[in-house]
C-alpha cells in the first residue's frame, strides 16, 4: 500500500496523505523527494483533520479519515491493491506448481463450516448395541418391523389461506396414504384420540402465518414423539422451473442424508416412518430429506437412468426447508408435555460450528 513507502521521519508527509485526494496524493508520491516545501503550506491549511502529536505511527488505517468520500475512495484503492496482490500470489503459486509437475504438494482443502464442525459426542456409531436396542424398542419399532403401515392426516391451523391449502394438497400427493382435512377450529388434543381410533399413524399440522406456511407439527400417533419445525422457503409446484409432470401414485423411495447425531437419528426415523416401507421402483420417484447445518431440505424428484453412469432427474412436487425447534416425548401437549430436546437459541447457537442434528 502507499503507506509503506512513507518513512517515519516524514511525519508531515504522512499527515498530508490522509487529507489530500487520491489524485493529488499520487502526484505527491511521485514527487515525494522534492517539492516538500510547496506541500508543507497546503498541509498546514488542511491540518484540522489530522491528529495532533509529534510521533505519528507508520501504520494508519483508512477508518481514521473523517471525510466519508475520501475515506471511501481510499478504501476502494486499498481493496484494489489487495486484490492485485492476491492475483499475483495465485499466479506465482500456479507457476511453481506447474514447474514442480508431479512432485507438487497436494492442493489444500479450504476450510468450510462443515469441515470445522465441532465433534459431537452423540454421533451414532453404526455398530452400537445400546442404540440398536433402543431403536428396537422405541415408538417406531412397529413400523420398522413391518407391523404397521403409515397413514397420515394432514391439517392446518385454523382458517388457512390459499397458499397453505395448496401446500397441503401437494404434500398429500407426495406422501402416499395421506388425507387432508379441514381444521374447523378443533383442539388438537381432541383430534388426536380420534385419529388413534381410526388407525392413523401420523398427524401433520401445518401452521400458517400471514398467508404463508411457517411451521409444521409432526406427531407420531399412538403415543409417539412430536416434532415441531419451522418451515421456510416453500415453493409450490407452479413456481418450480423445469419441473416434470405431477407425481403418480407410486410410493417413492426415501433418502435421508447426514443425520448423524442421536437426535438426528430419531428425526431421520420420524421422516422415514412417513412413507411405506416398500418403495415401488417402477414409479422412479424419490423423496429426499437432506440435513445440512441443522436445516432439513425436502426435495421430490423423478429420476431416469440414461445409461449405467448417467442419471437424469426432474424435480416435481413442493420443496421446503425445515428447522427443528423442539422434540417432545408423547403426543402433542405443549403445556404439560416433556421435551426431549428444545432449541435454546442463546445457548445452542452461540458456536457457529456446532450442530445438533
Amino acid at each position, binding site marked *: 500500500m502507499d503507506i509503506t513507502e512513507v518513512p517515519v521521519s516524514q511525519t508531515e508527509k504522512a499527515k498530508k496523505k490522509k487529507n489530500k485526494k487520491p489524485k493529488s496524493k499520487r502526484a505527491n508520491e511521485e514527487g515525494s523527494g522534492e517539492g516538500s516545501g510547496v506541500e508543507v503550506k497546503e498541509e498546514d491549511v488542511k491540518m484540522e483533520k489530522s491528529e495532533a502529536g509529534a510521533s505519528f505511527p507508520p501504520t494508519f488505517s483508512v477508518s481514521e479519515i473523517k471525510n466519508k468520500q475520501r475515506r471511501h475512495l481510499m478504501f476502494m484503492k486499498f481493496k484494489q491493491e489487495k486484490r492485485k496482490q492476491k492475483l499475483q500470489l495465485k499466479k506465482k503459486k500456479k507457476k511453481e506448481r506447474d514447474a514442480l509437475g508431479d512432485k507438487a504438494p497436494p492442493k489444500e482443502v479450504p476450510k468450510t463450516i462443515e469441515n470445522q464442525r465441532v*465433534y459431537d*459426542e*452423540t454421533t451414532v456409531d453404526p455398530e*452400537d448395541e*445400546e*442404540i440398536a436396542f*433402543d431403536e428396537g*424398542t*422405541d415408538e417406531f419399532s412397529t413400523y420398522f418391523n413391518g407391523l404397521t403401515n403409515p397413514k397420515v392426516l394432514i391439517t392446518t391451523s385454523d382458517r388457512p389461506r390459499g397458499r397453505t391449502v395448496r401446500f397441503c394438497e401437494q404434500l398429500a400427493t407426495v406422501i402416499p396414504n395421506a388425507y387432508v382435512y379441514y381444521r374447523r377450529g378443533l383442539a388438537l388434543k381432541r383430534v388426536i384420540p380420534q385419529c388413534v381410533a381410526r388407525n392413523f399413524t401420523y398427524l401433520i399440522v401445518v401452521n400458517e402465518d400471514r398467508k404463508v406456511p411457517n411451521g409444521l407439527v409432526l406427531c407420531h400417533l399412538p*403415543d409417539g414423539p412430536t416434532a415441531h419445525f419451522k418451515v421456510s422457503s416453500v415453493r409450490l409446484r407452479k413456481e418450480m422451473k423445469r419441473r416434470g409432470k405431477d407425481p403418480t401414485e407410486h410410493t417413492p423411495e426415501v433418502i435421508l442424508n447426514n443425520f448423524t447425531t*442421536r437426535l438426528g437419528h430419531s428425526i431421520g426415523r420420524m421422516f422415514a416412518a412417513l412413507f411405506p416401507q416398500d418403495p415401488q421402483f417402477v414409479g422412479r420417484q424419490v423423496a429426499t430429506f437432506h440435513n445440512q447445518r441443522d436445516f432439513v431440505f425436502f426435495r421430490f424428484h423423478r429420476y431416469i437412468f440414461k445409461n449405467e453412469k448417467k442419471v437424469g432427474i426432474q424435480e416435481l412436487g413442493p420443496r421446503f426447508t425445515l428447522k427443528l425447534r423442539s422434540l417432545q*416425548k*408423547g403426543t402433542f401437549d405443549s*403445556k*404439560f*408435555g*416433556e*421435551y*426431549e*430436546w*428444545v432449541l*435454546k437459541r442463546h*445457548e*445452542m447457537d452461540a458456536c457457529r460450528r456446532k450442530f445438533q442434528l
Partner: protein
Amino acid sequence: MCSRLALKVWREDSSEPVTELDVGKNVCRMRQSPAHRHKVATGGKDNNLKIWDLQKPEKPVFTAKNLRDDWLDLKRPHWVRDMAFIPDSDKVVTCTGYHQVHVYDPASPQRRPVLEAEYGEYPLTALSLPADGNTVVVGNTHGHIALLDLRKGLVRGCLKGLAGGVRALQCHPSQPVVASCGLDRFLRIHSLEDRKLQHKVYLKSRLNCVLLSSKDLEEVGGARGEAGSQEVKEEGEGEEDEVWDTMECVEERQKRKTTEEVTDGELKEKKKKKKGQD
C-alpha cells in the same frame, strides 16, 4: 413401594408386604424422610401431599390443604410432582406440575403451604435440596434448572445446559454440586456456587433417575485417585433400602425407562475426555 393405589412396605428378606397403606390414586412420588425412617410423604395428580407414619398406617399424619380458590371461585388444580424433607425440621418442600413450589410445615396449625413460589411456565419435574439449607434446586420439562431461595421464594439463579426435560436431580450431601439427568441422554454436574457446568457425560439412553452413592460401586483396582472425586459416583438404581428404592411409582405412562450404570472407571475416563474437549 408405591403403586397406583397402595403403598407397600417390604422387609429385606420376606416376600410379603409388611404393611399396606391406601394413599389415593394417581400418586406420582413417594419419599422417605432421611431423619425419621418411618415417615413417608406421598403426592400425585389431584392428590395432595400426605405424610404417613408407617407405624400407624390408617391415617396420614398430615394432609395438606389445597390453595384458596381463585378469583372465579374455581378450585385450583394441583399436581404434586416431587417432594423433599428439609433436614433439621419437620418441613416438606414440594414442586408441582403447575410450576409452583410449596413449603408445608406439619408443626404449624395451617395445612396450606407456608411458602409459595413460582418458576417458569412448565411443569417442575424434579427437586433436590443442597447441603446448605434455605435453597432448593428444581427442574422443569423444558430443561431449565433453577436455584430458588426458600426464605422469600425468589430465584437465585439458573443452571444452563440441559436441552431436554429434567427427570432427576440430586445434590451432593457435602460439596456444592448437583447432578442432573434428563431426556436428552446426558448426565450433567453443575457447581452450585458459580452455576457452571463442571462435567457432562453422554449416556446413550434417556435417563430417568440419578443417585449418589457413598460406597464404591465395584472393587476395580486400587489406583483411584483423589478421595474427593470418589464421593461423587453415579449409579443407576439404588439397592440399599427397599422402601427408598422406588422412584417411579405410577405406571400410567408407558415409556422405555432405562437407567445407566456408570462404573467409576468409565466415568473418570469420560470426565477426562470431556475436560480435554470442553
